[in-house]
C-alpha cells in the first residue's frame, strides 16, 4: 500500500507539479478546443491562436495565485 501511494505521489509530482491549476486549466482549454474542432464551430485558422492565447491566460492566473501565497 505504501508503495502504491508513493508511486502515485511520484507521478502526481512529476506531471502535475506544485500547482494543480496549471494542469487543470490546460486540460480544460484543450477539452474546449477539442469540442470546437469536433463540431467545426470555429475555423481552424481562428481556433489555433485562440487556444494558444487561452493557455497563456491559464499561466497568468497561476502566476497571480502563486504571487499571493
Amino acid at each position, binding site marked *: 500500500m505504501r508503495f502504491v501511494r508513493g508511486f502515485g505521489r511520484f507521478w502526481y509530482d512529476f*506531471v502535475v*507539479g506544485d500547482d494543480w491549476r496549471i494542469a487543470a486549466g*490546460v486540460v480544460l482549454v*484543450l477539452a474546449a478546443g477539442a469540442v470546437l474542432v469536433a463540431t467545426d464551430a470555429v475555423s481552424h485558422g481562428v481556433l*489555433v491562436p485562440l487556444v494558444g492565447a487561452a493557455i497563456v491566460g491559464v*499561466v497568468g492566473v497561476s*502566476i497571480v495565485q*502563486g504571487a499571493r501565497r
Partner: protein
Amino acid sequence: MSTTSALFLVLAAFLASAVEMVEALTIVLAVGVTRGWRSALIGVAAATVALAAVVAVLGPALTLIPINGLRLVVGTLLLIFGLQWLRKAVLRSAGLKAHNDEDETFREEIEAGRGAGEQRRLGLDWFGFVVSFKGVFLEGLEIVFIVITFGLNADDVPAAAAGAAIAGVLVLGIGAIAHRPLAGVPQNTVKFAVGLLLSTFGTFWAVEGLGVFAEGSESLEWPGGDAALPVLLAVWAGFAWSAIRLLRRGRLDPAGA
C-alpha cells in the same frame, strides 16, 4: 522539420538534460564524499540500467500511438511540465520564490550523509546506494521523458538524444574534473530558458494534436507551419518578461499592492 526547429529541439533537450544532470551530480558527489564512492557509483550504475529498461519499454510503446494522438497527449504533458518550470522561473526572477543553490543542496546532502546510520546490505553502504540511485533515477526519468517526447513528436529522436548526450558529456566531464557541485552554472537562468522552450513546443504540439478530433483526423496547422515556433517562443518570453516586471512593481499581486 526545418533547421530552426531542429536547432530548438537540440537546444531544449540539451538545456533540460543539463539542469537535471547538474542536480543528480550534486547528490552523487555528496554521497560519494560522505559515504564512499563505491556505493555511490554502484547506485549510479543501477539507476542507469533501470533508466535503460524504462526507455526500452516506453520508447516502442509510444511509437504504437498514432502521431496526432501522440502529439495531443505528449504535447499536453510537455505543456503542463514546461508551464510549471516557467511559472517557478517567473516567481523566482520576481523575488517571490527562493533561487536554487547547488552549494546549499550539497551542504544539506553532506549533512544527511554524515547523520545517517551505517547499514550494510549486499556488501554495500545501503544509505549511500539508495540516495545515489534515487537521485540519478528520478532526475534521469525527467531527461528520458523530455528526450522521448521531443524526439517522437518532432520525428527526430536522434537530435533530441544528441542534445542530451552533449549535456551528459559536458556535465559529467566537468564534475569529474572539479569533484564539486557545479554551483557556477546559472541554473535559474537555464531553467527559465528550458521553461520557455518546453512551453513553446508543448503549445505547438498540443494544439496541432487537437486535429485528432477533426473530420479526417488531420493535424491542425499553425499559421506559417514550423515558422510559428520562434513566434510562440517570443510570445512566451514576452509574457514572462511582462509578468516579472508587473510582479516586481506589485501590480499583479493584489495582496502586495
